[in-house]
């Protein structure tokens, strides 16, 4: 529970200490729409990486950069629409707007990270918000992954326009999401909880012709 | 004026149609008129007609920068209804409705006013509350209006998906049996011909480039064909009202937006009423030629380009196919856009202005066509008497300062 009692902001660990069943935003979708198997002819593969730690960082780049570097060991991506990640690819930080970044870390690390960031930032003007319950991360791979994205988003996903290390918030079907490209072959979709089922059904529908499969 | 009738038509057929008269003259502008109407669309022509007919003011010019009826009159989806929520707007639109009902005979021009009924669908509980509220208000205002159940809707429009499985199931509708559609071009032409016959000069390709104002009083206009004088000037130029106001030195609480519409290819008759849905946002009727006429939404940005953004059309057709899944294989023939002047309260302005003698009739948003005869009738009265017609009084510009808006946005959603 909250051992951090600063009076400026209310911060505490939203994860239980004991083993308690958690449900990803797609729990209902898996029951209701199923998970098509990944087969040899699956030219698009979807995989959820549920329960990760998601933090929103707000503040001026100059204010945040030192703290982020010190605590996360990653530079704050200053260029619009860019994404930095550590060597393991497990921790990432993404530019969302001139004063907003998304940090994704392995589930369970986010509270400690937030505490350390707050300590490092001291009395500066900033905000850190845990949003881990509100979104989930989907990975999309496969030879037709890009075409599946082209069916879904007006954003240009051609490698010339969307190199590795890019991430954008954009329109996706009739919803929106954060689209990132951490590696040559892998795309990441950060989707909001309440829209997750719609987006999942969209991806299965649009991906059917590529034999889309869902791992996990 | 040559009277039109079935008998006359047969007579002309015998002479190979060689003896048809001009429907209106192509006069040379006079130096001076009693009243100048700026804008030769439906509302402007109607104003001129009623000035001449009801008030005996025949020394009137209608100045049109392009061709008669070439603005929104030519671009709307032709829906006519009067089931508005607030007393003030209901009264104005019902006044128009009563004129519509005898208009073909009055003008001796068949404007094909077809009272095939208009239904406004409700998809949410709040939609239904708003519908009940509006229908009750209509009823107590003496306007035909009722609430339909999904079963009644299905009976009137068997091809609509009224199932509970729809994304936004249809919970009910308001229904105005006297409402319907009219042939938009014919309305302009009918008024033009009748006004011309009473002596009104219809001046096409005559663009107003400025106002002649002295001591806060208008006394004429500058045009591309020279100056024309009149002590009373009425501007009825939907889509360009703001531009005219700027010429006269004041601003209006208006923004001009693109409003798009589209038609399918002609189909054998399949839909014999008008269906509107604010919630999924689309409205549709079928013309006597067989085209499905479909109205799209307003684009959010200001625009004088007579075209809007493609996603607006996409969303509209999504709504149409949601309501009518069988239309998925029907094809869209054409799309186009008009320019609508929208007011913050979705109601028109029929008002005097800071310039004496200069009146504006504008801000009809998406609801202008249905008001055409009523708007002209009331505006003519206002111009003739230099005083707001009682039905026009609530629609003065002053309301934006006092706060006494007639907020049709509030409960009626988007007013079409």
């Amino acid at each position, binding site marked *: 529970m909250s051992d951090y009692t600063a009076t400026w902001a209310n911060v505490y660990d939203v994860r239980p200490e004991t083993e308690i069943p958690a449900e990803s935003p797609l729990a209902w979708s898996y029951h209701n729409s199923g998970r098509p198997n990944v087969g040899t002819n699956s030219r698009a593969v979807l995989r959820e990486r549920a329960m990760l730690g998601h933090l929103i960082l707000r503040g001026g780049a100059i204010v945040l950069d030192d703290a982020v570097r010190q605590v996360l060991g990653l530079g704050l991506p200053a260029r619009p629409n860019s994404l930095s990640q550590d060597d393991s690819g497990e921790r990432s930080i993404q530019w969302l707007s001139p004063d907003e970044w998304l940090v994704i870390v392995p589930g369970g690390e986010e509270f400690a990270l937030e505490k350390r960031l707050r300590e490092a930032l001291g009395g500066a003007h900033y905000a850190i918000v845990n949003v881990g319950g509100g979104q989930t991360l989907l990975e999309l791979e496969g030879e037709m992954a890009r075409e599946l994205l082209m069916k879904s988003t007006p954003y240009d996903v051609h490698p010339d326009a969307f190199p590795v290390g890019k991430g954008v*918030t954009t329109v996706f079907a009739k919803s929106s999401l954060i689209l990132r490209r951490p590696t040559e072959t892998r795309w990441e979709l950060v989707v909001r909880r309440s829209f997750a089922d719609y987006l999942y059904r969209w991806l299965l529908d649009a991906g059917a012709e590529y034999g889309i499969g869902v791992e996990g | 004026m040559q009277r039109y009738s079935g008998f006359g038509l047969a007579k002309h057929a015998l002479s190979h149609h060689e003896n048809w008269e001009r429907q209106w003259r192509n006069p040379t502008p006079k130096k001076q008129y009693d009243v100048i109407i700026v804008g030769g669309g439906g509302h402007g022509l109607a104003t001129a007609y009623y000035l001449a007919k009801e008030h005996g003011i025949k020394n009137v010019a209608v100045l049109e920068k392009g061709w008669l009826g070439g603005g929104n009159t030519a671009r709307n989806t032709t829906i006519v209804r009067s089931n508005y929520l607030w007393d003030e707007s209901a009264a104005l639109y019902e006044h128009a409705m009563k004129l519509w009902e005898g208009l073909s005979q009055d003008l001796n021009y068949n404007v094909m006013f077809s009272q095939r009924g208009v239904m406004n669908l409700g998809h949410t509980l709040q939609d239904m509350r708003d519908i009940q509220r509006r229908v009750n208000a209509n009823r107590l205002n003496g306007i035909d209006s009722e609430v339909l159940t999904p079963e009644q809707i299905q009976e009137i429009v068997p091809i609509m998906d009224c199932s509970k499985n729809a994304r936004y199931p249809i919970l009910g509708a308001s229904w105005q049996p006297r409402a319907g559609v009219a042939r938009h071009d014919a309305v302009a032409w009918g008024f033009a011909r009748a006004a011309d016959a009473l002596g009104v000069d219809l001046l096409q390709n005559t663009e107003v480039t400025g106002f002649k104002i002295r001591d806060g009083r208008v006394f004429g206009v500058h045009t591309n064909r020279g100056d024309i004088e009149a002590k009373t000037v009425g501007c009825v130029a939907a889509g360009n009202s703001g531009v005219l106001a700027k010429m006269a030195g004041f601003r209006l609480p208006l923004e001009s937006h693109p409003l798009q519409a589209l038609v399918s290819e002609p189909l054998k008759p399949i839909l014999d009423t008008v269906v509107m849905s604010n919630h999924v946002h689309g409205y549709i009727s079928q013309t006597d030629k067989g085209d499905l006429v479909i109205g799209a939404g307003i684009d*959010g940005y200001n625009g004088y380009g007579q075209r809007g953004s493609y996603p607006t059309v996409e969303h509209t057709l999504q709504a149409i196919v949601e309501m009518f899944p069988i239309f998925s294989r029907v094809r869209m023939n054409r799309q186009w856009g008009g320019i609508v002047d929208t007011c913050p309260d979705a109601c028109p302005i029929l008002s005097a202005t800071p310039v004496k003698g200069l009146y504006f009739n504008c801000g009809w948003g998406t609801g202008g066509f249905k008001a055409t005869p009523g708007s002209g009738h009331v505006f003519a009265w206002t111009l003739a008497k230099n005083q707001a017609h009682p039905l026009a009084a609530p629609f003065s510009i002053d309301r*934006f300062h006092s706060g006494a808006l007639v907020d049709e946005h509030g409960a009626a959603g988007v007013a079409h």
Partner: protein
Amino acid sequence: MFHIYCPYCEELREEEEFHPKGQAHIERPKDPEACSDEEWGDYLFFRDNPRGIHHELWVHAVGCRKFFNATRNTVTYEILETYKMGEQPTITAESLANREALGSVQVAGGGQQTVGASNASVASVKGVKA
């Protein structure tokens, strides 16, 4: 459908990511209580609505969520520039008219927008929209 340069994301994005928010540079009166009903009504409702060059407020709603301004021709729909909050437009109806008068620049025929705001346009008056 517009292609709009977001001055914060520093790239062209599809119109579907944006919402138009009306005329730009409308400043809320500093002392509303001192306004007459007429002045207050003017602030709330009365707009320029020009046919031609228009400065308007947009928000990159599905994107960086930042508000910014655009100079757009309301007839051709050409976007002549976009610029950040607090900045002033470099292109106005007057500047275009002047340039046209000098014969140096043709008024754009429509279609594609030109560029985002240049750095020179930054006349940063923090928090003032006028």
